[in-house]
């Protein structure tokens, strides 16, 4: 701690104290509560009834139980939507950077999906994808289909429908962040490349992308975290269905806690989920750190 101004070592900790206090109250205490619940047989009406050891965890990790499937589908959903968002977002940002001079109007429009509450996003897409909805009608009018597709209650479609709604909502975030990065790049590099006779694609591949690697890594991390938390879309659009095809861990935990009221099991599932997400995110975070180190 060699900051010139702040001589006392305790100052930084004092500044952080309210935050630390908040985290303790809002995270540590619920975490302890969750941990205690997870080893007890509890229902909402009668919490902490008796000690059940690890049987809740056994149920949460039971392969014949749907909980494992929920975990897997959460991971799949997070990575799939992140991949789509980042690729689409990057492409869009590159195109915009090429065509657009002032960013203001673009930013304004792109904010709309981001600001919409996830529940509203879910409702809008549910109506759009309805059996009699506009998308089915359009497909029928274009002659692509003869009878409607049940986007939300037929097997491969349901997952992709929810993914589509999620990608719609979050791709603008990727676009905004990468667009800004692109805008910050100095012109000299591109002028030099043009002088050397590089084609557009070569420029993008060899020059632009390496420059914004940090940005891409950062936005990927952010989007992944957001995707793991996704709940409203499933709740509004498919209720985990058809069957369990769009059943994710966050929805599973919600149901276990508030529909079957087995909060001991829900607590165990929560802890398992947190551990899983941390583990899954480790390589991602490592990649991002490496990208940052290379640049800074």
């Amino acid at each position, binding site marked *: 701690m060699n900051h010139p101004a702040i001589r006392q070592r305790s100052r930084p900790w004092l*500044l952080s104290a309210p935050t630390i206090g908040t*985290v303790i109250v809002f995270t540590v205490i619920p975490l302890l*509560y969750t941990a205690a619940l997870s080893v007890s047989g509890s229902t909402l009406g009668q919490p902490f009834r008796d000690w059940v050891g690890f049987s809740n965890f056994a149920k949460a990790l039971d392969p014949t139980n749907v909980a494992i499937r929920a975990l897997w589908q959460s991971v799949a959903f997070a990575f799939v939507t992140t991949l789509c968002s980042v690729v689409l977002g990057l492409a869009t940002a590159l195109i915009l950077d090429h065509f657009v001079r002032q960013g203001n109007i673009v*930013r304004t429009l792109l*904010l709309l999906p981001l600001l919409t509450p996830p529940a509203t996003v879910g409702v809008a897409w549910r109506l759009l994808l309805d059996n009699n909805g506009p998308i089915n009608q359009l497909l029928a009018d274009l002659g692509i289909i003869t009878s409607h597709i049940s986007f939300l209650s037929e097997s491969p479609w349901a997952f992709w429908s929810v993914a589509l709604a999620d990608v719609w909502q979050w791709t603008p975030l990727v676009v905004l*962040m990468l667009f800004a990065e692109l805008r*910050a790049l100095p012109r000299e590099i591109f002028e030099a490349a043009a002088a050397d006779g590089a084609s557009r694609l070569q420029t993008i591949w060899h020059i632009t992308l390496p420059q914004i690697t940090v940005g891409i890594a950062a936005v990927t991390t952010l989007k992944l975290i957001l995707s793991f938390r996704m709940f409203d879309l499933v709740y509004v659009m498919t209720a985990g269905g058809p069957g369990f095809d769009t059943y994710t861990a966050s929805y599973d935990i919600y149901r276990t806690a508030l529909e079957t009221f087995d909060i001991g099991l829900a607590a165990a599932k929560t802890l398992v989920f947190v551990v899983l997400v941390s583990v899954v995110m480790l390589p991602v975070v490592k990649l991002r750190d490496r990208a940052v180190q290379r640049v800074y």
Partner: protein
Amino acid sequence: MASAAVPVKREVARERTAPHLKSAFVARGFVWLWLVGFATFPILYLLIVSFTRQPDLLAGNFPPPTLTLLNWPRAFQSVPIIEYLQNSLTAAGVGAVITVVIAVPAAYAMARFKLWGGRLLSIVVSTYIAPPVLAVFPLFYMFRAAGLTNSEVGLAVVYGLANVPVAVWLLEGFVRRVPIEIEEAALVDGASSYQLLWKVVFRLMAPGIVAAAIICFILSYNELLVAQFFTTSTASQTLPVGISLFQGDRQVQFGQMAAASLTGLIPVYMAAVFLQRWLVEGLEQGALK
């Protein structure tokens, strides 16, 4: 990177080696159309839904053969939207202020001093991952003991404190973008340490602070689960709670629900448009470390 030297990013209109003017124009128009269309069509669709008669909606007649204005007043009659909206704005607004007040000093400290070798930041941030459904119960007991349930103030406090990890994460990145040379220069000029913090650093962080506040505002404004549990009367319930009530009815009035949703969206959107420069800068700089 050249950008590291510039604390606040400026928008630079760049010139490009322009291709043929006409095809550029067409291509630009095409891009615009796609962008505008894709980003806005679900919301525009909701707008149309809010003017569609219920029988047309259920039969899937799109575009609707006739329009109706009735959904809007009926939505306001069914659910006290204005009151809910006020509650939402209060809870989210006050919450954002609380969040910023708590997070800014901590972000500064963590960025400049790498507390615990940077692990404190990671711990704080990772607390955001877990699904909040179980946290609601102990928090409810705590807040009830403090008499803060069923009030917008109580809700503001919950939101304010719950968003601290996100704000710290965003702001920490901002602080790092403020070069330490500026602080050192201010010290040389004779500023005391508090003056330093207040005048120099916060000023430079201002766009980041505004951005973090806006983002936290949005997160709180759209929040549903905690609001449902913590509030029981119209005086304190928020708009997401109100909108959720449209869904459980025997005949879901989608037109009214769309109207209510759009009503909630409009003030936020207006504010965001107004503040969009800071907001976007906050998004960019916050995560790019």
